[in-house]
């Protein structure tokens, strides 16, 4: 019984904030769009799902979103691992300030940070002024509304999610193992590749997923920094919901994205179980 009480908040959370919204999504996805408040009529119709399969537009958007998420997560990992190594390598007294430095930018609003990138990247922005001032270019480079701008924004927004799990794993690493490897004659590179890296791989995978999953549904950054052709699923979902006012189709899209994201989570669980 005490166990039941302890679990009660968890179950309430799951029911209210996971199961109930999911149920509403399913009901909405099976409804028929109509003029009204709310703009659909309840029903039992699979037309929205059929459309997702028939029209390649949606599959393209899903692929574009997964590609963007994978690139973002990959880049984050490449930057986050050395960062975490550096942060874990300093004296313990310095770790907290390092963490604070990592988190500090995230105390300001998300939109403000993206707005700052717009200010940096635009034609009359800081970077272009600098390039022209130094005589490197004579006409402004088109930086904003490009694939690169979008990736910079994505990596900036999601980097801490990749750093934190790796950092945690690195400081928990038993130093005795590293010393033992060194005593047995392994050079630092060898120690890193045969001890440190394998032991922190699950954390790196967790970092990858923590970035990948929210990045797959991202729509603000592609909208504000990306090129018009970056039609990722988040933007398409927004269009269906707000522009076409087809809530059933938007709900079906959201469910499809959710189903697709369960796959990498399963893969991660397997990885965790194996380690």
């Amino acid at each position: 019984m005490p166990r039941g009480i302890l679990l009660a908040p968890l179950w309430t959370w799951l029911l209210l904030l996971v199961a109930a919204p999911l149920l509403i999504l399913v009901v909405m996805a099976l409804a028929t769009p109509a003029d009204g408040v709310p703009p659909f009529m309840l029903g039992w119709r699979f037309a929205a799902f059929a459309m997702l399969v028939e029209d390649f537009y949606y599959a393209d958007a899903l692929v574009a979103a997964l590609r963007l998420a994978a690139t973002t997560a990959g880049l984050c990992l490449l930057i986050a691992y050395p960062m975490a190594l550096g942060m874990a390598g300093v004296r313990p007294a310095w770790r907290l300030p390092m963490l604070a430095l990592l988190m500090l930018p995230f105390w300001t609003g998300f939109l403000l940070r993206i707005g700052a990138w717009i200010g940096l990247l635009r034609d009359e922005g800081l970077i272009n002024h600098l390039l022209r001032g130094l005589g490197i270019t004579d006409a402004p480079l088109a930086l904003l509304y490009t694939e690169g701008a979008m990736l910079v924004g994505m990596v900036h927004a999601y980097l801490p999610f990749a750093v934190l799990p790796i950092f945690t794993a690195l400081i928990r690493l038993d130093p005795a193992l590293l010393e033992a490897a060194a005593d047995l004659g392994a050079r630092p590179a060898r120690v890193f590749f045969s001890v440190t890296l394998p032991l922190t791989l699950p954390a790196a995978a967790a970092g990858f997923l923590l970035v990948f999953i929210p990045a797959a549904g991202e729509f603000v950054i592609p909208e504000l920094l990306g090129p018009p052709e970056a039609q990722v699923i988040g933007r398409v979902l927004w269009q269906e919901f707000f522009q076409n006012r087809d809530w059933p189709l938007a709900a079906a899209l959201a469910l499809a994205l959710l189903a697709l994201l369960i796959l990498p989570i399963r893969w991660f669980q397997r990885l965790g179980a194996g380690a």
Partner: protein
Amino acid sequence: MILRLIAFLVLLLPGIATGQERVVNVYNWSDYIDPYAVQRFTRETGIRVRYDVYDSLETLEGKLSAGRSGYDIIVPTSEPSFARLLRAGALAPLDRARIPNWRHLDPTLMARVAEIDPSNRHGAIYLWGTVGLGLRLDRIRAIAPDLALDSLDTLFKPENAARLARCGIMVMDSATDVLPSVLRWAGRDPNAHGLDDLRAAEQALMGIRRHVRAIIPSSAILDALANGEACVALTYSGDVIQAQARAKEAGRGVEIGYVAPRQGAQLWFDMLAIPADAPNKEAAHDFINFLLRPDVMAGITNHVRYPNAVPGSLSAVDVAVREDRNVYPDEAMLASSFIASTPPRDIERARSRSWSRFKAGR
């Protein structure tokens, strides 16, 4: 942003609104009122105004569609949002007896809206305008001094677009407010629903796609024009005129001009309306009545540089604004202008798909 947050939080607490204090919750376009008018309304009537803003019709419709938005006054554009909200039964009929200033409204303009809202039962025109080109004149004169600028040829002829691409071509991200003008430019009925019409419009757009730098919301285009980032931008008249004023204030040599297309411009009306489930309908009527007063309307037009539908306000409108043909179009231009209609749902999807292809560039 902080003000919006506060307005939002306050809306979450309906309990505060009860009691003897009267309030009206206004949801309007951003940068779209004379702040002094709001203060004056509160001073004269004792009704407090909670003011919140949106920058796209989609946001407004999204909130209204979910129901119980809590707003008392909204300002949807005649087509598509006002028409669609009307069809959805989301608007309350207006009680003319509570709006004596209704008599100041221009009957010819109101008659054009009556095509959507029979006998104007659900809305009064707040401000109106056209869709046309915002141009960065100083740069265009340098790059293409021979270009005639009074038509959409500037944008839609690929050879012109190619010349101007270097200094930034932008199109506002709105299928409903861009496609009719494209159709008109292509010599077709702006409200044609046929698939080959849509294809023709898409072809025209695709012809210039690789020269287009950004397809972004109109509010972002306003900023881009004012900063000198855009050379040619297809967007709302008043936004360009606001950008023009801002660029002049900044004094960095950015010279902006507006051109309504010679082929005939799309005309739109932003309507003052009351949601069907508005909590303070009486105060909302008072607010509409106040805004329709000629002196108040003149102040609003002077501030936001969009024309209003109250002819009696003209004498109090600044001469520079009143005589600017881009703000107040002349008779000939009004005669050649057109109003977009709201197509049926399946056509709308075909349109928005076509628009997505334009954005994606394939």
